[in-house]
């Protein structure tokens, strides 16, 4: 999400006058209230009091010269932002502040709020960006500038953040016995197949190994209830030195890129009934992501 998309040019002001902290906050509140009267009916002086009360507890000014006062509005279900760029800095708890950003949030949307604060702080620590915005003197121009800079509100988690990097993998000419011992030792259900340069070639799944003992004609039958045992399956491992990984691996399977989102990975897992995906960047294997990784690291967290 882009910070620019949270902003309304009419709530961004460039102030030439010398104001007090209260005046600056009040102007900003009024601008927001004017724009969003329908969603914040109780907008008014009570908000200023609430902000000032909060500021008594802990300062909302940061050393980089930005103040981010914040108020939670019951039932707002939105995030509203007002900005004031001051020519003459305010003095808030000894910090000279020339950029005031006022944020109205709902009681529940703390994650977005924290992400916005993080983005603003990062921006305020860049003197060139700050000077540039001060020089713009127009709300529309500020929004355009922020959009051009691609300032994001919270970076979304990608597959690269949760995948297993440097996963166990196997070469195409390795015998089946080596694949079997890797599966056994590391308790894996899938190994990516790669060449010496780690270029991704395909995948060997545990079911591909078992399928060696189950010929196609058995798979064509509607029902195997009549068959109580089948020798080729039971003696599958006797042939494990004759068969190469290349012979059983699957190729042309969907892989994920490291910048894929979590939801994209989950979508592919559900749609293709697969719990494991190789993560490939420019043809090179960079990791493996499993449904369990997603479950543990994302859903539970």
């Amino acid at each position, binding site marked *: 999400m882009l910070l620019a998309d949270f902003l309304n040019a009419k709530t961004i002001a460039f102030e030439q006058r010398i104001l007090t902290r209260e005046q600056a906050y009040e102007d900003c509140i009024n601008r927001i209230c004017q724009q969003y009267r329908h969603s914040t009916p109780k907008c008014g002086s009570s908000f200023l009091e609430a902000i000032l009360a909060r500021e008594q507890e802990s300062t909302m000014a940061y050393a980089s010269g930005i103040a981010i006062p914040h108020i939670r509005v019951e039932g707002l279900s939105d995030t509203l932002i007002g900005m004031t760029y001051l020519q003459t800095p305010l003095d808030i708890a000894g910090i000279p502040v020339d950029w005031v950003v006022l944020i109205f949030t709902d009681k529940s949307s703390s994650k977005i709020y924290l992400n916005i604060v993080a983005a603003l702080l990062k921006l305020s620590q860049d003197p060139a960006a700050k000077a540039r915005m001060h020089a713009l003197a127009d709300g529309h121009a500020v929004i355009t500038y922020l959009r051009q800079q691609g300032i994001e509100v919270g970076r979304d988690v990608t597959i690269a953040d949760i995948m297993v990097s440097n996963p166990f993998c196997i070469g195409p000419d390795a015998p089946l016995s080596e694949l079997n011992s890797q599966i056994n030792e590391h308790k894996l259900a899938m190994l990516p197949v790669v060449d010496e340069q780690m270029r991704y070639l395909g995948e060997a799944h545990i079911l591909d190994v078992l399928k060696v003992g189950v*010929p*196609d*004609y*058995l798979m*064509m*039958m*509607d*029902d195997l*209830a*009549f*068959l*109580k045992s089948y020798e*080729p399956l039971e003696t599958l491992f006797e042939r494990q030195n004759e068969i190469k990984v290349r012979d059983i691996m699957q190729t042309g399977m969907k892989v994920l890129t490291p910048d894929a989102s979590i939801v994209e990975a989950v979508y592919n897992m559900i749609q293709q009934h697969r719990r494991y995906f190789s993560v490939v960047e420019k043809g090179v294997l960079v990791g493996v992501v499993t449904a369990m990784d997603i479950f543990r690291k994302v859903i539970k967290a």
Partner: protein
Amino acid sequence: MSPALTMLAALAVFVITYLLIITEWINKMLAALMGGFILILMGILSQEVAFRAIDWNVIFFLIGMMLVISVLRETGVFMYVAIKTAKQARGNPLIIMLMMFVFTAVASAFLGSVTTIMILVPIAMLICHELSISALPFIITMVVASNMGGAATMIGDPPNIIIGSATKYNFLDFIFNLTPAIVFTTLASLGLIVVMYRKKLRVSMQNRAKLMSFKEENLIRNKRLLIISGLTVGVMLVLLALESVLHLGTATVSMSAGLLLVMVGNRKKVEQILINEVDWVTLFFFIGLFMIVESLVETGFIDKLAHQVLSATHDQPKPTAMAILWLSGVLSAFIDNVPFVATMIPMLERIGLVITQASQIDPIWWAMSLGTCLGGNGTLIGASANVVAAGIAKRNGIHVSFWEFTKVSAIYTVLSLLISTAYILLRYF
């Protein structure tokens, strides 16, 4: 366009489509539908005429049968009978081969050859594996049996379904006229199998014990469904036999049976059945073919061809029947027999305008049916069942080469065409 030019254009589309179908450069359904609509785009056929040429009786009959078969498969009855048969033979490979031949032929007469092959060949391969004998002779003889069996009834092979729909002949006419011929060819083929394989198949006691341990009774999971399916198929066959009295239409009979069985057996999986069990590719292939053949009829090409055949045989029914039988037999060995029959039907209708006596035109129709269905055995590419069986074998590591198949199957083809020749000559002339 002048009439002659229109005919040539239609013929060009027809030939190109046939080439694409035979060589399988593109999917045959795609080829047939493209050919059909190109004819409309070129103005050779109007859309109205093209759509009217589609034999909906054939299309719906096939859909109905596909629905019936999807439920019948679920009952496990085919696998049950196949395994029971092998156990009854107490693992004797020659007897298993003979019994599988008969079972494949009978099943094909009612289910169609491709379905039968897809169900029975995997079981035969398993039996051969357990008995440690080569599956290849079983696969080839079963394919031969499936094409023969399919020729025995109106609902067996697609060529007969199309002939039955296009002509006045009904289900019983096919039984009375074709089944005896097929019984003779089957008996002769069984004899040939005994001669060819008598000394070649040996099985150890240990492997026989493996086969005898199959628990085929586990396959019948739903007795209620089995009874309902059996009754439904029985009623369906009776209604088909009474077609000349009831005039329900064969498609209506098979659709009723199919819909009833799906309702009873698989209500909750209807969408899956419609997607997986109904072979839409084949159905739309037929639809495209009907449109293409219609262009040859409309432009007068079929008329010309019929006159050529008649002048070559001097309007005489006997030589015409023989010519049709052997021409169909040889051509069907190399090209798909459905497009062949679709083209031949309007031609035979024209011939019927010259040879008008029923006793003289009937044998010509039966000659074509026998020729196309039995000719399918001629080579590996002669019929869909052959190609399907070779595909199954290949996926299981058994390579069936064109010649390996053909040198065996051609013997059965020549034998069955000779028997058909004798049958037609003795019975009708």
